[in-house]
């Protein structure tokens, strides 16, 4: 029993105190920092034209989460989230700043979480992706009602399902993005 408790404690300590990702020290090339969000935004506005059911995929959010988890600093993550959010706002009919605020918060909190958890773990990645998708959708709905006065409905069940799907997509996507990094 003592041995089991000791094992759990070590795992917990490692989960909480280990460095964010083993390749967190690696960085994206600058070009990828621009191209990847652009591709994500493009895929969001272009792919659903031909594959409508992929409209549920929130690739800009997943890119933001991935960058935040691997960036190692909240300021860079929130700035990156803000950038991607503003680009999304620019291509929407909403006032500029809605997605910017939400993704800024997502970047900040994801970066904060990455300092505590072993985000290399697929389970943690899945949970975080799911959580941040839900948080993103819910906070966007709150902002729309609070700031714009829109009476949009919030379908929690659908959001949960889409969150699971985005989390499932996040696992291979994060692996792919990790491969694009270069060692420092």
């Amino acid at each position, binding site marked *: 029993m003592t041995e089991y408790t000791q094992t759990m404690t070590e795992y917990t300590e490692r989960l909480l105190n280990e460095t964010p990702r083993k390749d967190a020290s690696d960085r994206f090339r600058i070009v990828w920092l621009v191209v990847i969000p*652009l591709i994500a*935004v*493009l895929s969001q*506005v*272009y792919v659903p034209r031909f594959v409508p059911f992929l409209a549920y995929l929130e690739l800009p959010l997943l890119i933001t989460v991935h960058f935040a988890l691997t960036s190692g*600093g*909240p*300021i860079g993550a*929130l*700035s990156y989230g*803000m950038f991607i959010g*503003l*680009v999304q*706002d*620019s*291509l929407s009919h909403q*006032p*500029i*700043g*809605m997605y*910017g*605020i939400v993704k*800024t*918060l997502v970047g*900040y909190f994801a970066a*904060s979480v990455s300092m505590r958890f072993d985000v290399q773990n697929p389970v943690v990645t899945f949970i975080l992706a799911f959580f941040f998708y839900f948080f993103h959708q819910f906070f966007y709905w709150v902002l729309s009602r609070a*700031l*714009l006065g829109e009476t949009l409905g919030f379908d929690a069940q659908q959001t949960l399902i889409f969150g699971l799907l985005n989390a499932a997509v996040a696992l291979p996507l994060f692996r792919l993005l990790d491969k694009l990094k270069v060692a420092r």
Partner: protein
Amino acid sequence: MDFFLSRYRHLTVLLVVITAQLLLIAYQVKTSKDIPLIRVWAVTAVTPVEQGLELVRRYTWGFVEDYFVLLGVRSQNDKLRNENGQLKIENNYLKSELATADRARSLSVFEARSPSKTVAARVIGNGTGANSKVVFVDRGSTSGVESGMAVVTPDGIVGKVVEAYPTASLVMLITDPTFAAGVVSQKNRVHGTLKGQGHAECLVDYVQNEEHVDIGEWFYTSGDDRIFPKGFPVGQVTAAPNGKTFKEIYISPSGMQGGVEEVLIVLQGVHQEVPGAEVASPAYSLMPAPTEIIQTPEGGPPPGSLSTDADRLRAIYKDVGIEQKHTYGEGPPGTKPPDFTKIPSVHGVPPPNAAAQPLTSPPAAAQAQPAQPPTGRPKPAPSKSVQPLKSDQPPAQGPSQPAPAAVERPPAPAATQPADNQ
């Protein structure tokens, strides 16, 4: 402050960024203005890539997609063509069935309503011959069909049976050049002879140029030919120009519109009235009797004035008969008639007592007045067939009144003469 900023640096940056964006949103919402610069940048950055992607997709995936789609187009086209042909055939069949049902229904209704005894027949073939317009029908002598019987449809006459075989009959259509039938126009009652011309229209011959036939007027069988009962529709006039002697009246046969499929053979014809026939001369109106009246010495018109020459002649002859004590219509043949040479109005000799009459009218008119008997008895009342000049004229007032004075005037047109005044 520095401690606060260094300790909560991340949170401070977050608050600043969030606040800035909130202010941005607030500005846009409050002023209803957009931030075009950011949008222009984003759109300018995104849309070229999107256009490139679309171009690539069109020439790669689109080409592949079109290729695979076109692979099946030919077979699909052949399949659709075959299906279309089958549907056309089916559609034509259903249309013909529907038309057949309609014709059969109209034939049965017509057969039930027509007083003539008829038998329905179906055209089963055409006769040979370049110009002949004959058809075979599926009713023959076993069905009571005989040569010379009329063949009609509810829309009009079709032809006549020229040969009756046991199981079929040969019917000459009204468009055959040797066909003829008596016809009469509906409106003006113009009689003529219908003749086939070998084409779609028929000619109504032997109608004088003076006769009036309107375009669109209906012709019906007149029954003169003893083949077609009177009153069957023949067709409408399409043209009626004057010819050398007779009009060239062309009619469009109503019984053959749309082809001949089912017909009725008239086994026992019953003449009917031409439907909707109008009066032959509906435009004529009888003018009132002439108002020029011989004035009597008292100034009033003579009672019992006669209106026509025939009336006046009749009165003269009647007076001559009375004067010579001759009763018309009595005595055996060879009885001496009255001496008409002593009619002064006819021969211009005034009667002996004419000068004694104070007439203001011309002598000729006075001569037409019959002689009065010397006894002064009242003049016999005019015949019932003689109409008074005016219905509101006063009746005869006794023996002092002179006899009705004849008025010399041009004879009225024959067409205006009422039949009962003759």
